[in-house]
């Protein structure tokens, strides 16, 4: 059975992809449809769900929730994906070097990696915010750093394992250049693991960004962040819980879809991968 | 060789799950007599291990399942016993030794703990007494310093020692029967001889009966009293080792024996049996060996041969050699 057909049979992958697509479409199309996210209308105050003209209602400042929420999706996704993309590239680079070159370079890299790896993301982000100030930048830095390290760690393990494998030893024996071995043999074998791992870390990044915005660090007003919206609506739960619930559902949907895709990919690609990814996911 | 201790009757075991349905072991029957070593010999994949596991219902179920047949022991059909009753038989009346001792022992516990656990699963004794019994079993299995091994873990032992530990585990509750599934396959040749030696001793000194699963004809020749030859899930011939080796009746057995290279023979090339073993899903009608048989006749392709019993031997063939 080809990879594609197996993919279609994998329930998690299918469910996750559908959900993700729905959310992404919302994020892309939403702001167009719903208009500006910072248009205030102080007199109108809280409008409930389903008000004509304001599909999800409005928040305390009269801003349209639908506009804000869908824009918030964009923010979450952009942050998460760009951070993860960066982390994957950097992490793979570091991991490749550590695992391929081995020796003292590896020991030095591993030292730092092992230390940073176990750190809770939020703590690092808060510390970054303490040093740099609030805003998206510390979030991106913190999340990027920890993710890079985590990916580096797994990639290093994989590369170490691969270099023992016969086909790599054979390539060395055949006199192939380092870049050839890396490009043709090692990287293609590491990609699946990195892929699955990055889906996990996209989910982590989404939650981290939302959590930070929730406590006040992270995206600053008027830029809407889903986490911040949840926080804003906190005081009005009795009045109109949708203000917090809708952004919450959206975050949940994003994270769930990414997790499902990640799990599905993992099952699909190789049962052997499971141990490496699980160990790494034990954060 | 007096009475029948264990009788396998028309046993069929196969895969029956998620759309797949085929038998790997088909309608086999054999008897184990008292105080004998019965070898079940055949190529890899012929179903001999599965047969051994099925006797105590240890096959991986799902997906493997016994489709029909019975295993008679002590007047009862083991396959029909409820879980609790079967537990009393396993390890106490019938024990089993497995092929790879290193992976067959729990890596988190010491040899001693594994043994005493087995003892206390069947005997109501205190810890000290269980230890005594275990140490004695280790000695019986031929281990020189039982005390020392008692406190060691499986990964600290060599292949030969760990196999002896398995034997001790099998002996610890004084069973009547031992089923040994390829006990020497994973071991060095010198160690093999020692283990077989030990098994032989168990038969002679303790009057045990042993079912010895193997693919090695040399092993059969050195220790077994009787042999059952399996091919592609069926037993094609049974008889005393002497009879079968001197004059095999089934063409497959004959081919097997002929394929063993002998030192000093003038033959210039190895005699192999042409063709290949059929997959369990593509079993031909008629005799399963017919496609590869030298002595094949028309009826062989159509009708599955019945078991021809000639005295102490039996053969399943339309055209046996005699």
């Amino acid at each position: 059975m080809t990879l594609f057909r197996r993919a279609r049979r994998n329930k998690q992958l299918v469910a996750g992809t559908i959900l993700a697509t729905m959310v992404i479409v919302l994020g892309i199309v939403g702001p167009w449809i719903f208009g500006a996210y910072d248009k205030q209308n102080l007199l109108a105050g809280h409008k409930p769900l389903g008000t004509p003209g304001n599909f999800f209602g409005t928040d305390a400042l009269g801003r349209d929730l639908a506009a804000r929420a869908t824009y918030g999706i964009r923010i979450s996704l952009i942050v998460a994906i760009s951070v993860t993309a960066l982390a994957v590239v950097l992490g793979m680079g570091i991991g490749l070097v550590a695992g391929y070159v081995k020796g003292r370079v590896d020991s030095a890299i591993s030292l730092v990696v092992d230390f940073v790896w176990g750190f809770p993301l939020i703590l690092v982000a808060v510390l970054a915010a303490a040093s740099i100030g609030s805003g998206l930048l510390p979030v991106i830095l913190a999340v990027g750093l920890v993710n890079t390290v985590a990916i580096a760690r797994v990639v290093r393990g994989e590369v170490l394992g691969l270099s023992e494998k016969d086909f790599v030893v054979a390539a060395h024996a055949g006199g192939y250049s380092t870049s050839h071995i890396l490009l043709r043999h090692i990287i293609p074998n590491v990609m699946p693991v990195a892929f699955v791992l990055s889906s996990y870390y996209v989910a982590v990044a989404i939650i981290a960004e939302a959590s930070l915005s929730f406590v006040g660090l992270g995206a600053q007003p008027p830029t809407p962040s889903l986490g911040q919206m949840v926080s804003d609506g906190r005081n009005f739960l009795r009045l109109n819980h949708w203000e917090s619930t809708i952004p919450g559902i959206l975050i949940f949907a994003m994270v769930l879809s990414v997790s499902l895709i990640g799990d599905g990919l993992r099952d699909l690609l190789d049962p052997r991968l499971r141990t490496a990814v699980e160990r790494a996911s034990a954060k | 060789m007096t009475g029948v201790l264990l009788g396998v009757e028309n046993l069929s075991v196969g895969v029956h799950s998620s759309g797949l349905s085929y038998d790997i072991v088909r309608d086999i029957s054999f008897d184990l007599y008292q105080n004998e070593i019965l070898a079940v010999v055949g190529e890899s994949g012929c179903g001999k291990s599965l047969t051994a596991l099925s006797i105590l219902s240890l096959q991986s179920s799902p997906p493997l399942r016994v489709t029909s047949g019975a295993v008679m022991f002590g007047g009862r059909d083991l396959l029909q016993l409820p879980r609790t009753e079967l537990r009393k038989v396993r390890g106490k009346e019938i024990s089993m030794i497995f092929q790879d001792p290193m992976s067959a022992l729990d890596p988190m516990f010491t040899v001693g703990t594994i043994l005493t656990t087995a003892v206390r699963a069947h005997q109501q004794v205190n810890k000290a007494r269980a230890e005594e019994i275990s140490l004695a079993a280790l000695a019986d299995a031929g281990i020189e310093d039982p005390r020392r091994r008692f406190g060691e873990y499986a990964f600290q032992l060599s292949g030969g020692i760990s196999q002896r530990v398995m034997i001790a585990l099998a002996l610890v509750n004084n069973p009547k029967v031992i089923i040994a599934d390829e006990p020497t396959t994973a071991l060095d040749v010198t160690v093999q001889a020692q283990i077989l030696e030990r098994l032989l001793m168990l038969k002679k000194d303790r009057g045990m009966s042993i079912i010895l699963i193997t693919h090695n004809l040399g092993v059969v020749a050195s220790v077994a009293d009787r042999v059952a030859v399996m091919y592609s899930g069926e037993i094609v011939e049974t008889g005393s080792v002497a009879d079968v080796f001197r004059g095999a009746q089934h063409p497959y057995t004959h081919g097997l024996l002929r394929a063993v290279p002998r030192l000093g023979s003038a033959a210039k090339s190895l005699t192999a049996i042409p063709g290949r073993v059929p997959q369990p899903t593509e079993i031909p009608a008629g005799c399963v060996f017919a496609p590869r048989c030298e002595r094949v006749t028309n009826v062989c392709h159509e009708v599955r041969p019945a078991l021809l019993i000639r005295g102490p031997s039996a053969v399943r063939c339309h055209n046996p050699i005699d």
Partner: protein
Amino acid sequence: MRVVLRRTLTMLLLLLVSSFAVFAAIRLSGGDVTAARLPASASAEDRALFRQQVGLDKPIINQYFTYLGKLATGDLGNSLTNNARLSTLATEKIRNSLILGGSSMVVIFALGIPLGMLAAMRRNSWLDTGITSVSVAGMAIPNFWLALISIYVFSTLLGWLPSAGQGGIRYLILPTLVLSAEGIALTVRMTRSAMLENLGQDFVRTLRAAGVSERRIHFKHVLRSSLMPLISLAGLRVGQIAGYALVVETIFGWAGVGQALVNAVLRRDYPVVQLFSLLLVALVTFGNLMATVGYTLANPRLRKHQ
């Protein structure tokens, strides 16, 4: 054992380095300390004098070691917000966080392991599917949202539990559950997969053949092997909880280290940020170390350093 010692030393070293990094970052970035402590009318010279007196004009490294020295003697400084002595503040907050964090750890493993075992033993049944799905969902819910939902449901709607503050078991329940949620889900999944993997191993068949009961096989043998990855998980979880506590404590108004740190960052109360981030970093490092050490001790193969 040597590996463990070496690990501990490197961890301590890195701890030192990272605490210095935090220290430096905060000092370098921070706003003007004088703005908080001196009246607005103070002149530039006054400010310079003040900085000199407080020691802010010396090189960062010196400042750091002075700070460490002070820590060693127990002088933790004062909060910029209300000039409270940090030592008293810290003890109180630490105690609260320990109560919350400790309860969470207990709940995570007291619930997670049995549920995971149950799911493994009743594999593919409705129970298993149910437990597994809830775990997947549990890991996807952002904890702050879970906190809000639980407050809404249990406090606002049902009125069973208080929504914030401290003062008894009733106040502890919701925050603990929210803090443990992800940990429970993860533990369930790991226990289940470890048990399933071990159940397929050869040694289980040997034990069955020896007549050992299924119950004993599951609880004594398979569980023991499955517990090993959980030890690493526990150590790492300590760090994760420290992180999540920042958010959870804030939402539930639980006066612990996490809430204090977040508020301090928002208010730029540097001494507090310094101390509490140091504490948390130390805790996380300790947890990670325990994870490694624990794994080595639990695995007989590693213990005998063969």
